[in-house]
């Protein structure tokens, strides 16, 4: 099926009309979701993930507490309607367990866990739609949800997938492209310019790998800009809703205060 689709045509366009280095539309919704302390609904193109963060709070199980830092608990559920083929994935599936362990290990060095000894931070990830780059969307969503919950972190974590079609590298792959070409997911800390996570599961020559790794690192800073803007907009909207209330407390005479 895959081989009949042209991944990159002669004019340099991909199957969905993007250029090689063009990212998909990024949508971020940071509004409050249910009982969660912080949540984020994020979509990279057609891949959509809902992340909710609870905590830091008391751990349900005593054995899960550490005396010097917070425990991070990640649970991932993949909706059975998220892919083209309807498939039920059990929670004990090794692939999902690995997925959760990956996200946990990615955020462990970034979250300042030592500030919350004996507590637990729960991250619940709900994969709603999958069209390539599920891991990158989950990581970006988790970063935003953690920020939304006000949990201190040393830096953003921005993840992006990349692939190589014969010799031309491209970014942010869809399922179609993922099935056909070798692909890498890279998570970077944009401020420190360091790489937290790299995973690749398909065969690729060393030289090509170097190229795509550097490209993905640069793309991380673009994502960082977008994510930062979303956080800022959310803060501004929160301030503006809280604004008039404070204003009334101060009295009617200082109405002209510039917010």
């Amino acid at each position, binding site marked *: 099926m895959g081989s009949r689709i042209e991944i990159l045509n002669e004019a340099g366009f991909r199957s969905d009309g993007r250029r090689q280095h063009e990212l998909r539309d990024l949508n971020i919704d940071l509004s409050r979701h249910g009982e969660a302390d912080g949540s984020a609904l994020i979509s990279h193109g057609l891949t959509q993930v809902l992340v909710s963060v609870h905590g830091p709070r008391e751990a349900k199980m005593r054995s899960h507490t550490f005396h010097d830092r917070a425990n991070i608990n990640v649970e991932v559920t993949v909706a059975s309607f998220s892919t083209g083929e309807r498939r039920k994935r059990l929670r004990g599936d090794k692939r999902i367990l690995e997925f959760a362990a*990956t996200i946990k290990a990615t955020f462990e060095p970034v979250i300042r866990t030592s500030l919350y000894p004996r507590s637990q931070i729960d991250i619940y990830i709900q994969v709603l739609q999958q069209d390539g780059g599920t891991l990158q969307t989950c990581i970006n969503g988790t970063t935003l949800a953690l920020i939304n919950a006000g949990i201190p972190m040393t830096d953003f974590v921005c993840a992006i997938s990349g692939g190589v079609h014969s010799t031309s590298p491209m970014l942010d792959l869809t399922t179609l492209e993922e099935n056909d070409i070798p692909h890498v997911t890279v998570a970077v800390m944009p401020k420190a310019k360091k790489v937290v996570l790299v*995973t690749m599961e398909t065969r690729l020559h060393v030289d090509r790998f170097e190229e795509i790794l550097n490209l993905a690192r640069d793309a991380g800073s673009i994502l960082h800009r977008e994510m930062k803007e979303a956080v800022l907009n959310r803060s501004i909207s929160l301030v503006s809703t809280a604004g008039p209330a404070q204003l009334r407390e101060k009295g009617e005479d200082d109405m002209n205060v510039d917010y």
Partner: protein
Amino acid sequence: MRPPSPSIPEKEFTYGALKQNIRLDGRIPLEMRSPTITFGPELGWVECALGKTRVIAYVEGKMVKPTPERPFEGIITIHSEISPMASSEYETGRPSEEEVTITRMLDKAIKRSDAVDKESLCISAGQRVWHIRLTVHFLTDGGNMLDCACLAGIIALRHFRRPEVEVIGEDEVIHSPLERAPVPLAIHHSPYCFTFAFFPDSETSPVLDPSQLEQRLSAGLMSIALNAQKEICVLQKLGGVPQDTDEILRLVKVAVAQAKDLSDLVDAKLREDWEWRRSKVEVI
């Protein structure tokens, strides 16, 4: 019950030594323990040891009906379970996080990288294919069980010979090894896995092939599976200490050089074993 983590003096001593590029077993940071490979009497049985880590891999084949989705392809399954035999740290039942990582990594490095040609395992389309089953037993955990298991697995697959099968009309005739020489599996490439451990102190250089103590004290691992043709099959750095891209690329280059050496060693060992077997046949 988990055994206690390394004591504070042990921890400080190891970190201190590593900071000066000294490892407790006398290796330099980017040196691998040299593997010991022992072949059993049967084809496809191999014991592989890296220092104190010991792993047995065993390959067997049987004929089954293929899945309806892939009627032309044989089936390969990898079974690996870490029993408490390896170390008292492991329990039977619910797989630990480490076990999940090892199983998935073996699956990716050996199965998903298409190391074994699956179409050549087909006997008659839609009717009969070979089901190759690779079982990995972890005997002792001396650190870095993943690399050892991956090495043992790929050697076992290359060592294995399946009896020749001939299709005559509707019937399948299995020739016994005495009648016709058994045939090896069609191997596209041999991936070897290398694991690097990073430490919390950013000045300590990463080490290749961590021992059990080093692995427990590490703050993140990076595993690279690649073949002698310089193709990376799996690269996995799941969280842990953030690293520069240059550092990652440097380690990839180290792994490339190691893969070449290891591949030569494995080729030599397999040839040696084959020569030995041939001489045995002549004596009989």
